[in-house]
Each structure stands twice: as structure tokens, then as C-alpha cells.
């Protein structure tokens, strides 16, 4: 059964690949699946999968930073939060249109990210982790105390986006916007990691000496990595506030940054599909699956325990993440079939 459907999917890829390059078709198909997913799974799935998408976007940025350039950041939540407040303030208080607000809201965190990138030349490893954590904590304090702008502990609201004054979106419409953003970002990231820039980032991570000897300017590529990671995080922040209609300080804590890190490690470092898979595991597993299981679903904190164990198991046995297991299964199916076909 599974094999037959694989064959059909394979045919589809081959036939459409004349119109679109193959990876794009995969991503677009995945987008379509995401759009219909909330309607075929019951429960409050729209909100859950919406969150998965938001965090997947931020995690894709962190994956570029950590997986490719080898730099760590524990500040993801801070950057997400910052842009969420800007988006809320600009659209709600100043009546900015969605896209104008988006541009400004991501601009400021990116500048901040660039500054962190500059610092990363001086400090690395644990120290960089702590420095980025400090930035995020300072931001969270600002969210709490700078009440005129942030609304303090109560937070700040935002509406579903209003696109070009034509589409007044509701929750379902906003969800589609999230999907579009995710798919576009997946494609752009896919392009990037297969480009000279992606190779330069990986080279920098693998060997400073080789990178420099080959003409790779370490500072430039660290800045690019940090800029992209904060760009993705802040886009995620903007989408978060419009989708949830609310932002408040306690969301943007260290726990969130660590969850985003967990997404990458569980799903698959240096893998786009792995990142998205990881986001599903971390952010929908307990809501969509665990809670549905009678009795077990009621044990408090169980999902945290499961993730803890999962992370340890993955680090020990599957350093490439869950996506590796997925790929191995697919490979065994395809390779067996190819052998048959050639006989």
C-alpha cells in the first residue's frame, strides 16, 4: 500500500518537474498538505499547527546559524518577542499596513542580530550562548517594564492581518499566510544552503583555516548567519502575534529558545524537512497525540519527560535527527523498487 502510493507520488514529481524544478514541487505539495491538514485532523488543530509553523520558521533560522555556521544562539525568543511587539504596535497603535509593519518589525531585530554577530568574532561557544541569552533576557525585561509600548505583563494585542486593504483575514486566512511564509522560507533556505553561501557557512564551521585560505571572510559570513537567523526569528514573531492576536512577556523566555533548539536536534540538524518535522514533534505531539491517549495523556509533564529522553536517544544514536530515520525508510523502499525495475 505504502509502496504503491510512493510510486504515484514519484510519477507526479516526474511529470510536473518539467514545469517546476523538483524540490519546489515537493515544497509546494507539502504546503498544500499543510493547508488542508487542519480540516482532516479533528480537534483544535488549526491553532496547534499554526504554532508549529511559526516555531518551524524560527527553527529554520537557528538551523542555519547552528547547523551551518556552527554558532549558537539562545536568544531566539527575545528576537521573536521584539518583532511581535513592533508588529502589534505598528499595526494596532499606528495603523500601519501589514507588510509595512512586517518590514519595520523585522528590521530592528536584524540590526540587533548583526551586533551579536559582531560580538561573535570575540566570543564563542558557551560564552556566545550566554551572551545571546543575556540579550534575550534584557529584551524580556524591557517587554515587562516598558509598559507604554508593551503593555507590561498584560501584553499587547494585534489583529489578523489586513492584506492591502482587500483581504481582511480571519484565523483560517491567517493560517494560510503562515503556510505561505513557511513554504517560501523553506524554498529560499533550500536555495541558500546549496549555494556558495551555504558552502561558505559550512566551511567556516568545519575549518576556520580552510575558510580563510579559500577567501571566505569569516566576519561577513557570521554576520550573514546572524542576520538570517534573526530575520527568520523575527518573521516568526510577527506571524505569531497576528495569528494569536496577543503577545506578552512570559512567552518569550529561555524555555522557548531551548524548545527551538530541541526542534533542530530532534528533527535533524542541517535539514530543512528535519526542522519542520522537529517542530511538529515538539509542538504538536503533546496536543495532537499525547492528549488523545486515555490515562497516559493526563500525566502532567509527560511530554517534557518524553522530549528529554528523545533528545538523549537522538544525540546518542541518531545525530542526524529523526529525519534520518524517515529518509532511511524511504530509501529502503525506493532502492528495493529501483533494483526490481532494473531487473
Amino acid at each position, binding site marked *: 500500500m505504502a509502496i504503491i502510493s510512493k510510486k504515484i507520488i514519484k510519477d507526479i514529481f516526474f511529470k510536473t518537474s518539467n514545469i517546476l524544478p523538483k524540490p519546489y514541487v515537493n515544497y509546494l505539495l507539502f504546503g498544500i498538505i499543510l493547508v488542508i491538514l487542519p480540516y482532516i485532523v479533528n480537534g483544535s488543530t488549526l491553532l496547534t499547527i499554526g504554532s508549529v509553523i511559526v516555531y518551524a520558521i524560527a527553527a529554520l533560522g537557528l538551523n542555519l546559524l547552528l547547523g551551518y555556521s556552527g554558532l549558537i544562539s539562545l536568544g531566539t525568543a527575545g528576537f521573536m518577542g521584539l518583532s511581535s511587539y513592533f508588529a502589534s504596535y505598528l499595526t494596532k497603535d499606528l495603523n500601519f499596513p501589514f507588510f509595512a509593519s512586517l518590514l519595520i518589525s523585522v528590521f530592528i531585530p536584524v540590526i540587533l542580530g548583526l551586533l551579536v554577530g559582531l560580538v561573535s568574532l570575540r566570543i564563542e561557544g558557551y560564552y556566545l550562548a550566554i551572551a545571546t541569552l543575556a540579550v534575550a533576557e534584557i529584551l524580556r525585561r524591557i517587554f515587562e517594564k516598558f509598559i507604554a509600548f508593551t503593555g507590561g505583563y498584560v501584553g499587547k494585542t494585534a489583529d489578523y492581518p489586513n492584506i492591502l486593504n482587500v483581504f481582511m483575514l480571519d484565523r483560517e486566512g491567517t493560517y494560510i499566510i503562515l503556510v505561505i511564509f513557511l513554504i517560501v522560507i523553506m524554498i529560499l533556505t533550500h536555495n541558500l544552503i546549496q549555494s*556558495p553561501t551555504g558552502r561558505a557557512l559550512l566551511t567556516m564551521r568545519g575549518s576556520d583555516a580552510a575558510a580563510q585560505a579559500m577567501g571566505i571572510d569569516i566576519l561577513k559570513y557570521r554576520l550573514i548567519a546572524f542576520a538570517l537567523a534573526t530575520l527568520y526569528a523575527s518573521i516568526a514573531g510577527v506571524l505569531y502575534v497576528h495569528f494569536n492576536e496577543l503577545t506578552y512577556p512570559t512567552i518569550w523566555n529561555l524555555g522557548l529558545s531551548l524548545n527551538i533548539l530541541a526542534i533542530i536536534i530532534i528533527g535533524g540538524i542541517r535539514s530543512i524537512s528535519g526542522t519542520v518535522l522537529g517542530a511538529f514533534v515538539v509542538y504538536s505531539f503533546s496536543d495532537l497525540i499525547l492528549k488523545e491517549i486515555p490515562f497516559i495523556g493526563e500525566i502532567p509533564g509527560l511530554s517534557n519527560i518524553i522530549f528529554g529522553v528523545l533528545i538523549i536517544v537522538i544525540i546518542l544514536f541518531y545525530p542526524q535527527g529523526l529525519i534520518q530515520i524517515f529518509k532511511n525508510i524511504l530509501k529502503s523502499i525506493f532502492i528495493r523498487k529501483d533494483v526490481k525495475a532494473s531487473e
Partner: protein
Amino acid sequence: MSKKAIVVNKELSNDIVLQVDNLSIAFGGLKAVDNLSFNIKKNEIFGLIGPNGAGKTTVFNCITQFYRPNNGEVYFRTKRDKVVNLVGRPVYRIIRLGLVRTFQNVELIRELSVLDNLLVGAHIKYKTGFISHMLKTKKARKEELDNRKKAIEVLKYLGIDHLKDFLAAGLSYGILKRVELGRALMSDPNLLILDEPAAGLNETETEQLAETIRKIRDDFNSSILLVEHDMRLVMNICDRICAISFGKLLAIGTPKEIQSNKNVQEAYLGKDD
């Protein structure tokens, strides 16, 4: 930075590619390179030899600016036939001038395929930036395609094109040495610096390497500076050799002259074997 100090030109006679003048560097009290001078001519294969710890790799690092020498200058004739002093330039700028190196302990990227590792060597050839790369613009695609073709040619040249899709992580040391050589060639250098290219190779592989190095000099119209412990190889392919010991010059000359030089013999015999 002090651009002016860098641009100061020196008259190098037309046939000289690299001129090292009074180079010195010390680590703590240890003088790793001590007032060393030599030059390399166009299309010359030039050997730098010396016992373990003599300072050969350190000389390479001072030329390529991985280390800042305490003293001395390194003049280089660029691809565009301009003479520049390399000292004080950022490391990552050196390759653009036409000088590229390999490492004593292979520095390849394990997660990249052989082909992609070669493309890293073409980094300076790309004119598009990361935004074009994300959008996969027409220009970016063309650049990538061109460099890919070239990388495959270089792989064929080195006889390892059948391995192009293999990850560097799983390959043998001898192959990796060749991949690293290929990566260096991608930048079209006019001076290629090789740190122990034959280390870890067996006899036939070393013979092949000798052939390859000669061919590279002719086909890429490049000069070659190499450090090597395999004396057969050095004596076989080098036009001239510079022998050092404890960072100091012992002798410069043809292989014959070096072999019969008393100081060199002492430095090697004094060590053992």
C-alpha cells in the same frame, strides 16, 4: 587598516613570483623562523625542506598571513602582474591575489561532497551575493553551473571524478590529499603552496603525484612551493630547494647542490637515520 604600508611596491625582477625577505617569527623564546630569505621564479617548482620542527609550516603560515611575522616582508607578483607586500593583509584576501595553499593536515569539509569541496575553492570566483543565492537568480545559476563544470574538469584532471558525489568524510587520506589539491586549483593560482603533499601516500601514488605536480605547473602556468619529507620526490621534481634548520637558512640551490651541501647533510645526519 594601514593601506599605504601595504601598497608600497617593490621592484621585483620580472621572473620572480615570490620574494621572502628577512622573515622572522618567534613564539615566546623560540625563534621558529629566523631571518629567512629566498625567492621563487615563474614556473618554478621550489622545495622547502628541513627536519621536523624546522619551521617549514610556519614559513607557509607567514607567507599566507595566518601568522603575522615579527619581521620581514613577503613580496608577491599577483595574477595581474602587480607586486604587493603580503604582510599585514587579511588572510582571506590572499587567495584573490593568486596565492593558494593546502594544509599539512588536510582541511576539508566532511559534510560536503568531493565536488562541493572543490566548489569551496572557487569561492572567490562567485560575484553574486547571498540574496541572489536565496532567490536562485539566473546569474547565480549560471555561475554555479560554470564552476561546477570546471570542478568536474579538475576532478577528471586529478583522476577522481568518479568520486565527485562522495562525502569527504568517508574517503581515504590519499584521496583527500588530491581533493584538497583540486580545491586549491579551482582558484587558478599563479603560486600554489603545498604542505607535505605526499604524506601518507604509497610509492605509486607518490610517483603519480610527482607527475601531477609537473603537469599542474605546465597546464595551470603556475609556480609551486612545496614542503616535503619524501626526499626522492623533492629531488626528483624541484628545480631549486631551500633547506632550513631551526628556522635558519642552510642552503639554497639545485637538488644536486643541496644533496652535496655539508650543512644540509649535518642537519639531517645530526638528527638521525
